[in-house]
């Protein structure tokens, strides 16, 4: 048994003290900190997705519980906008002494660039240690088709951010594509230091009593345990074809065994979203169980597991 386990990982020169992050839009730092001090359980904080301007989001109903399998959401990217984030929220986040990953979304390629520039130039901008480009949002110029759906727009959005921002850039991919490989490749070509996979899966549910969809917007993003097999498939494929690009795995993680599955499939970091709704202490539990796993398996570095299920790699502990 060893007690000097390293749960951390480095991506694009940025060190995360633990490879467990929260997922964008599923977290509330100040309140979760009251349940478990964040420094003791997270390797970094991913912000909810921020847009250039304040965005009020969608009307109610925004969420549905899908018993057994997860949930649907159609929040509509509600957020107070980039000014508010940089003027105010980034200062609060500084208190946790964890790397902050800013998730951004825009309505055009240019706006993505503008946001990256704005972060670079803002006096508090150096609090942003990495940017995660949320590509699951409608491209206004293309009639509202998501940026993430086509390699060209994925490349363009990623590139403009990567060229403007001098720290690591992660491209968050949508699984709602025929194959994830062309968009993954495009993001890498665009200069992404890592790929975050996956965002939510399009889904819907009908309220049979009311005879109408549960969500006001009919369809929404499916998350939780039911999307884990889809995430693992995406991560396996990306790691198989682009073994040198780190993957941030997300989708349905609820416990340490799930994290191991993501790592073995090819992820270097993971994010936990929906499952912290039921249990805000899930980050701490996962971290403790992973540390225990490393000790039992005599693994010095948890990150050594990345991709080991692909067979061709030696497992170095």
């Amino acid at each position, binding site marked *: 048994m060893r007690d000097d386990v390293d749960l951390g990982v480095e991506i694009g020169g940025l060190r995360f003290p633990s490879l467990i992050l929260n997922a964008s839009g599923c977290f509330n730092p100040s309140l979760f900190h009251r349940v478990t001090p964040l420094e003791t359980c997270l390797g970094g904080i991913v912000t909810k997705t921020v847009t250039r301007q304040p965005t009020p989001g969608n009307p*109610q*109903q925004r969420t549905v519980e899908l*018993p057994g*399998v997860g949930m649907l959401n159609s929040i509509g990217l509600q957020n107070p906008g980039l000014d508010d984030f940089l003027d105010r929220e980034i200062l609060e986040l500084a208190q946790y002494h964890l790397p902050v990953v800013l998730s951004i979304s825009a309505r055009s390629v240019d706006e993505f660039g503008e946001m990256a520039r704005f972060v670079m130039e803002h006096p508090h901008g150096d609090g942003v240690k990495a940017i995660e480009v949320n590509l699951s949002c*409608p491209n206004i110029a293309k009639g509202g088709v998501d940026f993430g759906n086509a390699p060209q727009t994925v490349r363009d959005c990623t590139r403009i951010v990567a060229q403007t921002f001098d720290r690591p850039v992660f491209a968050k991919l949508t699984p709602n594509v025929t194959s994830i490989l062309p968009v993954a490749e495009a993001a890498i070509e665009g200069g992404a230091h890592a790929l975050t996979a996956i965002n939510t899966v399009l889904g819907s549910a009908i309220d049979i009593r009311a005879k109408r*969809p549960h969500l006001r917007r009919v369809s929404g993003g499916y998350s*939780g345990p039911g999307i884990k097999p889809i995430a693992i498939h995406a991560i396996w494929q990306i790691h198989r074809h682009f073994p040198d690009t780190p993957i941030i795995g997300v989708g349905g993680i609820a416990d340490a065994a799930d994290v191991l599955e993501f790592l073995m499939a090819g992820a270097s970091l993971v994010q936990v979203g929906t499952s*912290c709704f039921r249990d805000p202490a899930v980050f701490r539990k996962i971290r403790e169980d992973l540390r225990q796993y490393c000790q039992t398996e005599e693994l010095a570095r948890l990150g050594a597991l990345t991709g080991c299920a692909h067979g061709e790699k030696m497992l170095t502990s």
Partner: protein
Amino acid sequence: MPCDTPLLDYHCHVLDHRTVGNRLKLLTLRPVYAPGDPEFHCEAGQFVMIDLPTPVFHFRRPMSVLTTYESGVFEIFYKIHGRGTAMMAELQPGDELNVLGPLGNTFSLPADPDSALLVGGGIGIAPLYFLGKALKESGQPVPSCYYGVRSQREIGLLEPLTQVFGDCLHIATDDGSCGTPGNVCHLLNLHESAIRQAKEAYICGPTVMMKAASTLLKTLNPAIRTEVSLEEHMPCGTGACTGCVVFRTDRLLPSKTCVEGPVFPVESIVWPTDDPFPRGGNAEAAACATT
């Protein structure tokens, strides 16, 4: 600044669990403290998130705290509504469950409790009972309580309500089986003068009832300050998901009911519409998956 008030996922034992009306249950929980845990403490209007005893994926269920006792023992008054509360109804004394809390804001204490109005509908009575009892226990005058339910079998808490509010308790039942026949607005109309004198009102109940009652109060007494306690679907209860929002009259962004609420000044909120397919084709707009 990160807030340092501890918030705990209290591991609780079921002390008592009884049926008190038609599909109405009263659940008494005793937190089991680990060394160093702060005692469970909460105020009128706050709620907890109750974890369901099942391995199946689910959200916790938000429930107002009805009352607290020594050592943080507390009570939940709830209605069996759907699958989650049906599962809760199976809990037996001695069973264990996790309860995250206390969550949310509180009612602002009335400047003039004597004239204040508590207006409750159905299980919305829970936080109002807490407020009345807290005022009484702190030696203040007890506000009037106007309580509307479908029928006598839906009251559940008649005895404790009578104990706290005495003559200030006014009940209306839709079927006339107890108190005044009609809904809570009929009842309020009968007490017009009390309403005109009141400075503050606190409403909790179904949305349509809160909307109607607050409008009536405003009509009868334009100067009244009304607070409503909202019931939005709450996936997390911790401000993490942005699912439980209410749109506001005084700002662009809607507020999370679980952290900025559940209590809001009525004039600051936009009542959610009941039309599932609003004109303008929103319903068929391409959904933005991540959102």
